[in-house]
């Protein structure tokens, strides 16, 4: 069962093709981290999923219904927080919570209280008087207190200090254990420990979309050492990205690593070599892919 599914999704803004042929599926209960450099199309994709803008073409299904139902009653099960969102800054924290409460039949007062305590929210101060981190916490409290089925967070951590980031992520993990979470962030270290799935976007395309464990096993940093200067016997395979040769040493990132087939193929191409491979952090995967920007190199968008 997918909480979110898109088919051949496209969004153009006059001359800018912000989202290109995105086929995305996010399983119910998963924590999906959407990565990508600035301008990759992450925020546009999230706005499409939240029905804030309309797609140029393609189909979107959110919580089993067409995206056009993501309005009014359809938003009673979706919590959304974005760094760009304009909060009603004239309200105090308490007013914001009190104002949001009647909109959600599933609002949990005890959870609200726990969130307030956990985030140490100053309820009597106006939002405009709060720091950015505190405002994000207030928004997150409003997005979590009704126990949403889907939580969509667009760059919720950007610009926040590490302490606040930890606090937010920890709260999310604890307080919304059953919800599907879609999260776009640059904070790869935080995502790595938190996400169950990861997607990588660049230039409007979804270059990669799969489970975190799949990424960890598939992406390997490979170092080949040869007795003589390395000469290629065959063209570089698509699965090798970020490939570099320095004398007798070749380094690359294998995007479809297989412990049996990958060393054999490397020897076919590079001759007699000694191979060592190591797993990559999410940050290293992100950087390799950002440098390569090839959907083929990413190995498709398998779940």
């Amino acid at each position, binding site marked *: 069962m997918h909480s979110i599914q898109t088919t051949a999704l496209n969004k153009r803004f006059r001359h800018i093709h912000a989202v290109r042929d995105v086929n995305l599926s996010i399983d119910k209960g998963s924590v999906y981290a959407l990565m990508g450099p600035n301008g990759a199309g992450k925020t546009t994709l999230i706005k499409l999923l939240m029905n804030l803008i309309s797609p140029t073409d393609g189909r979107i299904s959110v919580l089993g219904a067409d995206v056009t139902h993501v309005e009014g*009653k359809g938003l009673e099960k979706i919590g959304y927080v974005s760094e760009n969102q304009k909060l009603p800054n004239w309200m105090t924290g308490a007013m914001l919570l009190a104002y949001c409460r009647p*909109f959600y039949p599933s609002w949990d007062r005890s959870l609200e209280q726990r969130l307030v305590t956990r985030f140490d929210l100053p309820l009597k101060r106006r939002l405009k008087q709060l720091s950015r981190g505190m405002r994000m916490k207030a928004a997150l409290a409003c997005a979590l207190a009704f126990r949403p089925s889907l939580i969509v967070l667009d760059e919720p951590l950007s610009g926040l200090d590490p302490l606040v980031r930890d606090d937010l992520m920890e709260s999310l993990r604890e307080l919304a254990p059953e919800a599907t979470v879609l999260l776009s962030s640059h904070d790869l270290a935080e995502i790595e420990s938190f996400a169950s799935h990861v997607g990588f976007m660049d230039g409007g395309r979804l270059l990669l979309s799969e489970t975190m464990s799949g990424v960890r096993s598939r992406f390997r940093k490979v170092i080949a050492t040869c007795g003589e200067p390395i000469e290629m016997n065959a063209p570089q395979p698509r699965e090798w990205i970020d490939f570099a040769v320095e004398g007798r040493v070749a380094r690359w990132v294998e995007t479809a690593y297989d412990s049996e087939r990958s060393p054999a193929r490397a020897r076919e191409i590079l001759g007699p070599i000694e191979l060592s491979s190591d797993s990559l952090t999410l940050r290293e995967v992100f950087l390799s892919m950002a440098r390569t920007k090839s959907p083929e190199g990413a190995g498709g968008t398998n779940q």
Partner: protein
Amino acid sequence: MKIVLHILRKDFFRHRWELALFVLSCAAWACQVANPFGWVWLREREFVSVLFFGLWFFLIVRVIQGESLVGDREFWMTRPYRWGGLLFAKMLFVILCVNLPFLIAQILLLAHAGIPISGHLIPGLIFLQLEFTFFLSFPVAVLATITESLVQWGLAVAGLFVFSLMLSWLPWSKLPPPLERGENICSILAMAIIAPAFICVVLWQYARRRVWPARLVFAGAVLVVPLVILLASTPLIRLIAYPPSNSKSYLQLSMAEDTQSHERNYLRSGDEGNISLPVEAKLTDSDLILDVDGLRVFLAGDNGWSWHTPWLNNSIGFSKDSPNATIEFAMPADLADQMKHLHPKATVELAFGVYRLGPPHVFATTGERFGLSAGIICRWAERVPGYAFLRGSGCVAPLSLPEATEIRIDSGSNTCDQSGKNEPPLPAGHSARHVEYGSGMPADFDPDPVRKISLDFGDWTPPIPSVQDPKTNLHAFPCKGWPFSVRMGFDEGKMRAEFNLGEIGNEKDVVEDPHPLPFSIRAD
């Protein structure tokens, strides 16, 4: 409904200071309207009205843009608002916070003017609120739905102002002037286009938030305005507004003999010749009043010479008691000079409204205050001790006036000095009348709900009008205690008809203006 009230409560709280300021400005405006000469200095009087209506607009824009419909970053857009509920909450806010204080101010103004407040005023008061909602609040709100902030809204208003300035620079004077009924038809046509377009904009924005298409629809609706103004001057609209009728159905019009107040005249001033033609109307029914909205004069002379005026706005009226009037028009002086030798004959085409007067009702005026038909209340004012008079805005009426009201006084019961020179009383048989035209609507589009009537009875009319009477030019003033005879008139329709006036004059009628004016006089 719970959510609607929840949003409403939030808006009340958020805009409480603006609301308090608006209510204060509304009270100040009402005080100023009730006491136009006694409350604030002349300059501040404008300021009070500007402040009141400025805050009216401000409050509406602020409350609409509290949940802005432009952009995709608004907090409310990702919350489970139902668009219908949100729209309803905003409408309720406008009704409770804008219309209600305004309604209370209007009721107080009516009471202050001495008009008894009763249930029969309710439909008119509601109609007036609807008018202000439709013509004032609604366009302001529509613009607020397609702009993101107050500044953007202000810029859009400035843009509309510049647009209207540019429109005013267009050579509208080259078009024939539109006549009253033609303007009314075009106003209805404009409303029939603009109102649905504006409703679409609001619904589209609340339901779908498609800003640019909504803005285009708004701009398209605004562009309808100059087209409709243009349309009002066209012969087609004039034909629809004033369909041709049999000229003898209601009156016969002929050239009249010169009298002291109506005489045939040709005054040449510079390049322009101004011609006055006295006419006399014989109405087919003594219960009719004819109100001329416009006319044009056709001249034809020897050797096939002809010329005609454009349509001219002309406010003349005919009734049984005042059958005489003067038709005035201008023509190029060289043409007028040429015409003198050609024995010109005139035909006049009138575009007019016909009102049929009902039976007369006589009202006693012995009290300090007395009532007439249609809720009209009059009050005698005592300028000097012992001398009551009724001049200026002596009478008031609530909300609107009937289509025509004739108030008549007769000298039969005359007891007071008309000239102020201790002259003997006017002989019986003289009459004077005042005709007041109104919209006939439940309420006029005026924030002040009190209709003020300046009673001006004109000169006394002698028993036999054609006989010259030394008292003819004596201005008629009613005296306290004289009975007023009131007849209500109802619109029987607008029409046009042509009347042949015959030969209009010759060379001897020409008078050279001894003091030509430094500018030309337009006939309209």
